[in-house]
């Protein structure tokens, strides 16, 4: 099957390659647990690694997958050196989940849907998520602010996320 795909090295425009795929790589790394600064660094190293070697263009989907794998390898490499455990046990499964989410637009459509869905949450649920993801509040801080137990805060956020997931699926259907 592979022979049907052009095998020759394609002279890619590096800038075009970076511009087209960097957002996806960065978001993928963030989903793998990198903080923004680490995602910046690893996105850069991913493209550098790819652009410094021969590169065969099999099309956007394959390129995106290849970049993700390089990015993952870079992450594993960094984590091993710093003695940390790589947080993803099954990268294949994670990749499938990511592809479902990202689609063909690096996740833009889902993020737009997510924005709209957040607005549909109850005030309490939205407040809890705001505190968690915007203000980086701890679970105990959220619980204190909402005058509920920590478990209650956890459940509230889990439910909210479940609702968001369903809402996004409806919008994407």
């Amino acid at each position, binding site marked *: 099957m592979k022979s049907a795909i052009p095998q020759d090295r394609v002279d890619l425009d*590096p*800038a075009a390659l*970076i*511009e087209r795929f*960097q*957002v996806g790589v*960065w*978001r993928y790394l*963030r*989903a793998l*647990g990198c903080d*923004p*600064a680490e*995602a*910046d*660094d690893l*996105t*850069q*190293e991913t*493209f*550098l*690694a790819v*652009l*410094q070697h021969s590169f065969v263009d099999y099309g956007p989907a394959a390129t995106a997958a290849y970049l993700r794998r390089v990015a993952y390898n*870079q992450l594993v*490499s*960094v984590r091993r*050196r*710093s003695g940390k455990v790589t947080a*993803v*046990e*099954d990268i294949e*499964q*994670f990749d*499938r*989940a*990511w592809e*479902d*989410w990202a689609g063909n637009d690096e*996740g833009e459509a*889902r*993020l*737009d849907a*997510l*924005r*709209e869905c*957040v607005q549909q949450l109850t005030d309490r649920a939205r407040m809890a*998520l*705001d505190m*968690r*993801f*915007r*203000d*980086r509040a701890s679970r105990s801080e959220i619980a204190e602010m909402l005058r509920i137990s920590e478990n209650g805060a956890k459940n509230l956020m889990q439910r909210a*996320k479940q609702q*968001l*997931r369903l809402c996004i699926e409806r919008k994407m259907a």
Partner: protein
Amino acid sequence: MNGDYQDRIMEAGLQEVLGGQYPPDLTAKILQELDRRRVLPTESPGLLDSPPVKSWPVSPLTPSVSPVAAVDPADRQESRRDVSAGTATGGVAASGRSVMGRRRSASRVIGWSVAVASGALLVLFAAGIYVSRTAWGPGSPLLVQSPRPSDVTPVESEHADSQLGALPHRDMPSPWVPDTDFSSPDESAAIASASTPPSSPSSPIQEAHVEDRPVPAEVRSEPWDDSRIIAFVDQMLDQQWRQHGVTPAPPPNDSQWCQRVYQRLVGRDPTPDELRQFRNEPSGRRRAALVDRLLESDDYARYWSERWADTLLGSAAKQPDRWGVDRQGLEQYLASSMQEDKPYDQLTAELLSASGSSDPEAADHDAAANFLVAAWGREGSIAATDRVSRVWLGKQLVCARCHDDPSSGWGQDEFWQLNAFFQQIKVQRGPEDSFAVVKDVDFHGGTGIPQDAEIFYRGQDGRLRAAYPEFGSESIPRSGLLADVHRRQELARLLTRSADFRRAAVNRVWAGLLRYGFIEPIDGAGPDHRPSHPELLDGLSEQLAAHDFDLKRLTRWIVLSRAFDVSDQRTPESWMDTPETGGSPLFARFYTEPAPSMDLQRSLMLAVRTRPAGSTLQASILAQRSWTPSSVNIPQIIDTQGSESMIGPPWLDRLATSPMSADQKVEHLFRAVLDRKPTAREATAAKLVLADRMNDHQAVRELWQILISERSRL
């Protein structure tokens, strides 16, 4: 499990949607680094990427930089493999460990790389030279098989280069990317041009870099009075105009001049009352009076403290919460320093030698320490060395780390001699980088003798070399003990006496006021970037020193000179003065800053990103207000426009006060200016900008301004 992964992916999405953590545009950065790596030789990446200062029991020599051992290229591969195995069980820490511990670690490493007998022999040999500390010539047969210190993973992050362990240095070569700073838009181009292949020791670079060494310049000229200095500036400008056959643009009228002075000194336009006050003053001294008034104002201190903070923090300035940097604290420190007219050399010394916490609540808080917290970054002393050279010497030393650099004129030895000043530091970061503490610690040197504390690095010829603190051919005591010598204080003393320090200060202030410096990029001084007005630069530098490094005085000279008294019109007679296209600036016309070419989305995202980490939106709004005009792009965009475009059409006020929702206002603005609806992300960011401004009028104007910029770009 799949559900877990979906959860995590969505959480990352929420961090973006709610937390404002948007993907950055890394294109330029990556391409720049790609160019750099393509230029650098690839046959021995380890030499180029290696973390430089790792101890190995090899004696330094009497000279401050000395070849210690040679590595046979044929043996490198084997050596690397052995060392990799060695690092699996432990490496050699840079310092802070006992000599015995160091020897044990070394023995373990060697045990993986060579036969036991050879290892023992090596240890004995190393111990021998360690004790005797006599000079060894290149090519020692035993050290040929030594593990390369650069390949040894630091085990303990006790001090100094502990940050090097944060990113790999072998598989991910040279992860460090040069910082950017506010006043050097062409910095990336400079880095690319600076990335030339290493030269041989006998290459012409040697001549160049001897010429450009930092010169100790303690002798100060007699101070001239202001009128004489301003006349000197005018004369030097005029001389260049005549040489190039350029006729300067006609002078601006008083109102235009007043407006530009406000914009460049305090970052905003004058109010009608302020303009009226200026006009009502006697014409003979109204200009000097205005400059003096503004230089003493809080607005000046605040605006320039922001700009200096950008310079000092480098890339960390773009992400205020990064690495525990308290940007606001640093700005306050800088502002109060300006208000009390602290001499620039004293300010520099304080920043260079500061110790303490960046946490304002901490007992050992020292806002000046924020500079080193940011400069330290991930690369530790390496990054700090480069940032110090950029800020205070006007040079980029990123290339000199690995090889003599013809662009900066610095040799590799000089880089490491400068780096040796930053070895008595330990930077500890709080949880999630919420703060950081800079501590002074004794440095025990690569071989564990604190009284003679050297660092080692791999020379471009493959040999291991030692370096001691030295700057501008002046060395200091070699002890690493704080009780004997405080290296950073010594560096501050030497650096602030150097001619490069003065020139860099003048160039930076000149560029901050007139858009272009005498040397472009602003931190690209060296043989490849000669000053456009060398005599003027030197003259102002001397007078700056003669006037006790009074930056306000320097600013006064520049603003009251002809450089500020030419209009921004392009005339047929001044067509040659086009620094925008890469030519040398002649300052025959006033260079107005175009709106940054960044697109709308990025402008808005940057606005969103200024919200400090961990704060509530409300807190961030308050913080933004206190920073106004913010150092991020929106006020700069506004700053760079003429007053007419600043005011905007009258319907903006009606829009601001209308009962429309934020969504409707944003859409209205987008449709009016760009003839389209905003995307969801643009709308979100735009609404945050609306929420983040003092009043609706200001917010709507700022958004309108951004959209106008975007339309112009399109």
